[in-house]
């Protein structure tokens, strides 16, 4: 298993460079001139324009730009934004906020998703099952921004139970509302996955054996059915963690969360390669690690799976 983990980390290296190269090229290839946008349509002295171009290496061909970027990366210098701030500092401010939001959203979908999914799966065809199925269908069908704006207006403005937007420090309690919005859609998927998996495994031979052995119903459900049913759910949650860590542009926008999604969106619009590539680079690492954790969880959930 140690070899397996090590191998996965070694795979990270080509994936990381491939992804940064690709993203750097994509930002480079998007039409438009970042320096022209900096002036906001007002005039700019030619000398100033030339100086800015040189400062961000925008006067160089693509391979030199990327090479200079890599050179800086080796010395852990992620470059500067067009406002002259260090990209590492900018990401350092935004990432903790996004991480908090992602953890909360993931907890909500994991806990409630599995719980509702198990109950619905065990009581297949009953009232609870039907209600959950319809409700999850509605949540999946409604776009996130509708959900976000409605919750913000009702809970934040009309009822006044929570701040409609997240204040500067983004504390846990203020992130609850956006986390719910963010988690709701995936919650619906987790419920459906769990339910399907549970109801399938309920009729498996080992479940009948366990019941025949005289094990209590709780033990049969929790240890035998649930554990074996969680593999697809864990796969889904792992992938979702990566997606959540990438920031949620829509939700962050609605609740004014100063997270990575907002940062990435603005950087893409401005053509700020340094920021975009740095964020994507971190995301690559997050995805690879999340996938690794999921793979290791497989072995724990299903002892038949072994890694060498």
């Amino acid at each position, binding site marked *: 298993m140690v070899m397996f983990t090590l191998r996965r980390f070694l795979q990270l290296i080509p994936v990381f460079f491939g992804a940064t190269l690709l993203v750097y090229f994509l930002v480079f290839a*998007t*039409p*438009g*001139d*970042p320096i*022209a*946008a*900096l*002036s*906001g*349509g*007002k*005039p*700019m*002295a*030619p*000398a*100033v324009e*030339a*100086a*800015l171009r040189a*400062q961000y290496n925008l006067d160089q061909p693509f391979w030199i730009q990327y090479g200079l970027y890599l050179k800086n990366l080796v010395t852990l210098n992620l470059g500067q934004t*067009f*406002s*002259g*701030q260090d990209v590492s*500092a*900018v990401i350092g*401010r*935004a990432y903790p906020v996004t991480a908090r939001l992602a953890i909360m959203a993931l907890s909500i979908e994991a806990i409630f998703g599995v719980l509702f999914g198990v109950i619905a799966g065990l009581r297949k065809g009953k009232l609870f099952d039907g209600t959950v199925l319809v409700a999850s269908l509605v949540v999946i069908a409604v776009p996130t921004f509708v959900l976000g704006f409605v919750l*913000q*207006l009702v809970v*934040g*403005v009309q009822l*006044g139970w929570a*701040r*409609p*937007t997240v*204040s*500067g*420090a983004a504390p846990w309690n203020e992130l609850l509302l956006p986390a719910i919005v963010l988690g709701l859609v995936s919650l619906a998927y987790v419920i459906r996955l769990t339910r399907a998996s549970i109801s399938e495994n309920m009729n498996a031979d080992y479940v009948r054996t366990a019941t025949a052995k005289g094990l209590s119903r709780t033990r049969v459900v929790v240890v035998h059915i649930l554990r074996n049913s969680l593999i697809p759910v864990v796969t889904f949650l792992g992938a979702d963690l990566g997606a959540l860590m990438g920031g949620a542009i829509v939700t*962050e*926008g*609605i*609740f*004014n969360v*100063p997270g990575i999604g*907002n*940062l990435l969106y*603005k950087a893409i*619009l*401005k*053509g700020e390669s340094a920021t975009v590539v740095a964020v994507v680079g971190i995301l690559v690492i997050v995805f690879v690690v999340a996938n690794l954790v999921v793979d290791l969880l497989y072995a724990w959930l299903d002892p038949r799976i072994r890694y060498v």
Partner: protein
Amino acid sequence: MRFSRTSKALGVAAVLAMSLTACGGSTGGGNTGTAGGNTSKAITANGTEPQNPLLPANTNEVGGGRVMDLIFSGLVSYDAKGAIQNELAQSIETKDSQHYTIKLKSGETFSDGTPITAKNFVDAWNFGAAAKNAQLNSYFFESIKGYDKVSAEKSTLDKMEGLKVVDDTTFTVDLAQPESDFPLRLGYTAFYPLPESAYKDIKAFGENPVGDGPYKLAAGGWKHDTSITLIPNDKYNGPRKAKNGGVTFTLYSSPDAAYTDVQSDNLDVLDQVPPSGLQNFKTDFKGRFVNQPYAGNATMTIPSYLPEFKGEAGQMRRQAISMSINRQQIIDKIFYGNKKPAVDFTSPVLDGYDANLAGNDVLKYNPTKAKELWAAADKISPWPAGKVFTITSNIDGAGNKEYITAMANQIATTLGIKAQLNPIATFKQSRDLINSKKLTGASRAGWQADYPSLYNFLGPLYGTGAGSNDGDYSSAAFDAKLKEGLSAKTVEDGNKIFNQAQEILLKDLPVVPLWYQAVQGVWSNNVNTVEFGWNGVPLYYNITAK
């Protein structure tokens, strides 16, 4: 000194002809509705993350601008109506609109206690103009003698010959040519002074500036992407003395989020109602909103390099397009009546604005005349069969797409041609197309004044070779009028000539003026009436908490 609307022209003239002396009191900006407010409580307002370090010559957008204007003060500032009032200037004298002698009030200091001297101004302006410092606003100094040398590419010079320190409180400015509206510019961000300490580490200074305005940055006040906290500067003695205990700007990435915050009293002042709120803000905020014009307009550029729009036929086509746009209908349907159709190239909040310029009927909806003109143009050189008239615009900002589509439909219906929006994903991409003169049709344009002056709406936009002349318009007659207006003895005389220049534009229509911009602002239950300025920015220093 605070001028009333009617005496403004007179006052401006006084700046030039004689000298402008400061009133003794500092409460000149007195205001209705603010009496009895809590002057020690801080207020909150919406903002956006400044795009550049907070340096006077490097702040060219509203996110940084609204902060800079509070933590700095220059020689003059603008009151609510856009009239200039003395801040640090004791007097600004000139006899020929080209050579200025500027005297400072003595005893004024920066917020750290160091005295403000003439050298602080001269050094800051030289710093801003020099190419080696790459400041975005450097072109603001272009009228000063010697700018061409310091601003040349790779130039290492950083002293303009036109600026001379006479003594601690006096300096002289020589311009390359007479410019009667130069004193009007001096309240703009680029012209603020910098303390000596700034140059030691200009980058660090831009993060944590020390200024001389009615407010100063609180310790660690700029939390990037989150908030900017300002506290009153007790060293400040000018006309904009803070009437509250501070201003905290909450930085938003979208005005929608800010709008819900004001609705729930989590934010005190919002100066930009989002498009989604335009229909209802007057009822959502009964008695707590403004809707007033500010010094900005929206236009559509029809570049002169387009083959279909050259010569006499081109002129007729531009006029036909202008007359086929029903501005009022678009304003009513899309902006819920919150704007006014344009009847000139400037803005009604400016001194010298004239709503009755000869030839401005070309800006009125007249489908019959439009069809006639289009047909007449077709006789000279026919419109290419199947050619689509496109209007290029970035669509990453809210609200552009809707009105341009409506406008294209009106043009198409009236003139019987194909017309459509040419949507561009990002602002940088559309700017690139415009700057590199690669447009194949019209483009969305507009102007927000840097300082309250007619010339600011004309010179930089339509002068031959001017920096923001996106359509490559060139008219010798217009250029001559601009020059004549600039060398006028007074701003008032100048404005008359600038309006004559506008009449030339009304014939040529290098851009099609659409409407004047208006600010829709709202405030919470926690503050008293908020007054908005000539540029659409709230007078933060005048706001009192309840």
